[in-house]
Structure formats: C-alpha cells, structure tokens
C-alpha cells in the first residue's frame, strides 16, 4: 500500500493545455509544462497570476475546466484521490494545530495518510530529527517560532514519503537563517529523487530552482533554467557588456511587461 510503482517515466508532472475558469474569469489559461523526476521546479509570479489555482488543480483539489494533468503518472481529473496519496503539500500557513503538541500533530497527519505502527514510529523519528525537534515532542505547537513550525509542517507533509512535493510559498514569515536551512532540506530531498514544485514571489528562491516558469495573467510567459532566461534577455538586448548578465528581476520585469503588451490579444 505504501510503495507505489513509480515506473520508468522520467517525467513526474505532465501538464497539457490546462485551463480553469471561474465564471467569465480565466484564472489558468492553456498552461503546458513538464517537470522531471528529482527536479526543483519554480512557479514565479505575482499574486493572482494563477500560481495557486494551478497548484490546486495539480493536487486534485480543483477540477480543471479543460486540459489534462498527470501527476506521478495519474490523471488528476480522473483520480484526484490517487494523486493525493502520491503528493505532499505544504503552504505558507504551515497548517498545524496550535493546541496540539508536536507529537500529536505528527500522529494526526500520519493518521490522515493511514500510517500506523512501525512505519509511523520510523517516520515520526525522521520528522523530529529533520525539524530539529527531538526532545521537544510534547511542546505545544503554538509556542514554536516560525522556523520550527515551517520544518515541522514540512515534516508532516512528508510523513507518507511522497515522490512529489508541492510547496505553496513555503517561506513566508520566516527568518533568513531558517529560510537557508529550509532550502538545504529541499535540495537534499531533490537529490534523493523527490520532485519539488514550488511557488514563490521571492526571486532569490526562484534562483535556487533547476527551472522556473514565470506566470502572468494565467499563462506561462517564460520558462527555462534561470541562467538561460537571463542569457536570452541579454541576447535580445544585445548589450555590449555580455559578461554582466541581467538579474532574474530584470527577466521577470521584462517578461511581465512584454506579456502585458501582448496580453490584449485575447
């Protein structure tokens, strides 16, 4: 029940022409992309660009209006519950129960994913060590500071060892040191084969992704490794000083203003 045959497909997430409308408003407009296994893929965009709506569809929480998404080899539109078993999800709210202790939170989320007995004990130990909360199992969660909560929330999202992890603006309200530690954890996990899809509007976080997609107005305005996006911009600008690359911020602004100019077509 726990181990799901991952198959030989090197693609963990495949999205084809995914669209979601709310009434007359199109939140996600014909989005297509692929994320390889073990890749850290960033969704970069301002608030309301369609990042969260996309993630919610990929997690089986929202039905796509049209298009298709396969997550871990499962069609999200057909079997959202199957997708839920294969993914971990963590949002910037670090959704933990403040009135429960660290241990009780772990046990509750373990229970939600059907963990029990030896496996729960093993994953509990893993989470406590990863979050650095060994010895503080019986502390009330509301007394923990942001960084601890963030790591505990991440641990709770990983209890069932999902091959794919969704992080929705995971570092909001956390100090810089905790943020750095957090990203080290993410890098380690990706190296171990976990696929990570992360949304952010922090450009320094986007820099740490293998590839990013810049979302604007529900569409992917640009996609690729950050270094390539910068090079492409530099080439277009045909600057004299080719060795000084534009920053990701330059790329973002360029792409967004460009898309805004072209956006009047639909």
């Amino acid at each position, binding site marked *: 029940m726990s181990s799901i045959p991952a198959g030989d497909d090197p693609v963990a997430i495949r999205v084809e022409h995914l669209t979601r409308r709310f009434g007359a408003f199109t939140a996600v407009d014909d989005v297509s992309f692929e994320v390889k296994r073990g890749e850290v893929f960033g969704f970069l965009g301002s608030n309301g660009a369609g990042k969260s709506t996309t993630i919610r569809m990929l997690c089986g929480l929202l039905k796509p209006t049209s298009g298709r998404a396969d997550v871990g080899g499962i069609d999200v539109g057909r079997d959202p519950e199957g997708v839920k078993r294969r993914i971990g999800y963590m949002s910037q709210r670090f959704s*933990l129960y403040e009135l429960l202790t660290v241990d009780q939170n772990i046990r509750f989320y373990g229970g*939600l994913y059907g963990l029990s007995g030896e496996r729960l004990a093993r994953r509990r130990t893993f989470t406590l060590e990863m979050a650095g909360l060994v010895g503080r199992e019986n502390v009330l969660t509301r007394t923990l500071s942001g960084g601890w909560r963030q790591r505990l929330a991440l641990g709770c999202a990983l209890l069932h060892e999902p091959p794919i992890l969704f992080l929705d603006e995971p570092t909001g309200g956390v100090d810089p040191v905790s943020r750095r530690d957090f990203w080290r954890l993410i890098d380690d996990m990706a190296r171990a084969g976990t696929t990570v899809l992360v949304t952010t509007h922090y450009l320094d976080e986007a820099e740490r992704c293998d590839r990013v997609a810049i979302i604007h107005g529900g569409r992917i305005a640009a996609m690729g490794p950050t270094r390539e996006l910068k090079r492409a911009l530099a080439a277009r600008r045909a600057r004299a000083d080719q060795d000084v690359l534009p920053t990701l911020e330059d790329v973002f602004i360029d792409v967004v203003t460009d898309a805004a100019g072209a956006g009047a077509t639909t």
Partner: protein
Amino acid sequence: MNHFWAVAIKELRQIRRDRRTLMVMLFLPGFFLLLYGYALNFDIRHVALVVQDRDATAESRRLVSRFVESTYFELVGTATSDAEIGRALDSGVARAVLVIPEGFGHDLAQRMPVTVQVLLNGDNANTATTVLGYTTAVLREASIPAGASVTTRLALVEPRIWYNPELRSTLFLVPGLIAYLSMITAVVSTALSIVREKENGTMEQIRMAPISTPAFIIGKAAPYLVLSQISGILVILAAMVLFGLPMQGNWLTLNLVLAMFLIGAIGTGLLVSTIAETQQVAFQIGSLVAFLPTFVLSGFIFPIASMPIGLQYVSTVVPARYFLIALRGIVLKGSDLITVWPSVAALVVYAFLVMGLASLRLARR
C-alpha cells in the same frame, strides 16, 4: 475507520486544551436555563380577588373558599354593588372579581344549570389569560354539577391556550428551552470548529490528504455529539431539580430522541460552516439559525396551530418542532418510543438531509 479515529482523537485533544469551548458547551446551557427559566414564567400566584356573593348560602361560601384554597387567589375584599366592583378593578385592588348570583345554592341543589360571572383585568393579556385558566380550573374542580356553565366577561383578552393540564407554564416552557439550548450549543460549536480550521489553513491541508469527506465529517462531528449529549442531559437534569420537570418516561428513549435531534443540529452547524469564512460570522449565523426557528416556529412559545397557514408549513422543516413533541411526550406523559416514533422519524430524515447536504458542500471542488 482509521481516518475517522485520527480526526476524532485530534478533535478531542483540541477540545481538552480549549477550556473555554469546554466550559461554554457544558455549563453555559445550564446557566441560561436558570436565567430564561425564571424569566419565562407565566405562572402567577396570589391573584387579588374580590367577591360579590349575592347568594350568601353555604354553597356559595364553599365556592369562594375553593378559590382561596387553590392558592392561586387571595381574597382581598367583598363588594356589595356593581359600582364597588368597578372601583376595585379600576384602582387595581382586584385583578379578578367573582360574582355569584342569587339562587346559586338553590339551583345547585336542584341540579339546575348555574352561572357565575368572572371579571378580569385585561390590561396585561398574558396575565389575564393565565388567571382565566386558573378560574376555569378552580370552577371545574369545584365539581359544579354537569351542565353548569361559566360565563366570563373580559376586555382585551385574546383567549389562547398556553397551559399544560396542571396549569404550570414552566412545564410547558422548559422543554422548549432545553431544545433551544441544545440546538444552539451543537450548531455553534460545530460551525466554529470547522471555520477555525478554515482560518488556520488546516482545512486546506486536510483536503489535500486522501481522506473522504464523510470520514472527516463524522470524525469531526462525533466528539461534538458526545459533548452536546452530555450537555443536553445536564440541562434536563437541571430542569428537574430547579423547575420540577417530571420524568414520566424512559431515559433510554429520551437519550435516543436527543441524539437524533443533536445529529441534525450538528449537520446544521456543518452547513453554516460552509457559508461562513470567519468565526465571528459563523457564530452570528449559527446563533440566528438556532434561535429563530426554535423560538418562533417550533411551538415553543407560539402554538403552531395558531400560526398563519404558510408559517405552519415552514414549521414542518424545523427539527425542534418534532423534538419538542417527543420530549414533552416522554417527560410529561411518559410516552414510549412507539408513541413518539413519527417525531423520531422526522428528526432522522432531517439529520440525513442536512448531513448529506453539508457533505456535498464540503466536498465540492
């Protein structure tokens, strides 16, 4: 099943740490019972009575002493003329006047129809109605022979039947209070607990997990059902101690009826939680939804039979209506499960409907 336990145990642990919720659920209903119970009392004792005895026979004096012995009335004076009667009522010396006509004793002995007149101060319709009820009861108990009739002349009184056979309005009102307090406790606590999860973002996290909506809802509702049940029984026990509510029926039947009513109330709370996004809004909608139908449309205070026909139809979907019928039946009349079965069936239907609807709305994606 594992999912159910995971959610239920989590919820219980949260409630245990949340002392305020626990206190509100268990003890506030008892407190409100005390408040409302004494305030919502239509009973009046020692009604000031003036008598005009034009007959002055042993029979007429016996009737007067019946009134006094009932303890509902206190004899404050006698009148010899109609003018005096008018003055007594005008000045407020008397709330009620009893006029026994000449020949009362004679007619009674001849087994002929007798008539007495009762004049009531109608400035407070509720009080006047209550006093009218006492009068009728005393006259009936005075074993006036068959065929005797009682004429009452009232101003501004709308005759309505508010009473139970014992003429104690408390016995009629307290079951309504029990229904209202149980309803509001269950609706509000359930609605708040779900909306709190929405506010904290844990709701989203749970929706991301492979747990079915019914498993989540039942796991979430079960602890609140247990707590509301305990709270409801505490209120009923308090009503027995404080207001002398009898218990003629079976406790098991009562528990069953209460549980069915509470499941519907909890389902209502779940429905409220699908509308409200903040705890404040959930509290307001929850209180309103629990209060208005239960107070106005259940037959708690206003008899259903005297409502406009449209409202009577509306009242058929108010669960408190059926709960009240069953509750009054069990505690006052000792009705068994077979007798109250139609009400229980209505409560079960309501519970299924709201639970199903809440399930659908919470699962929507």
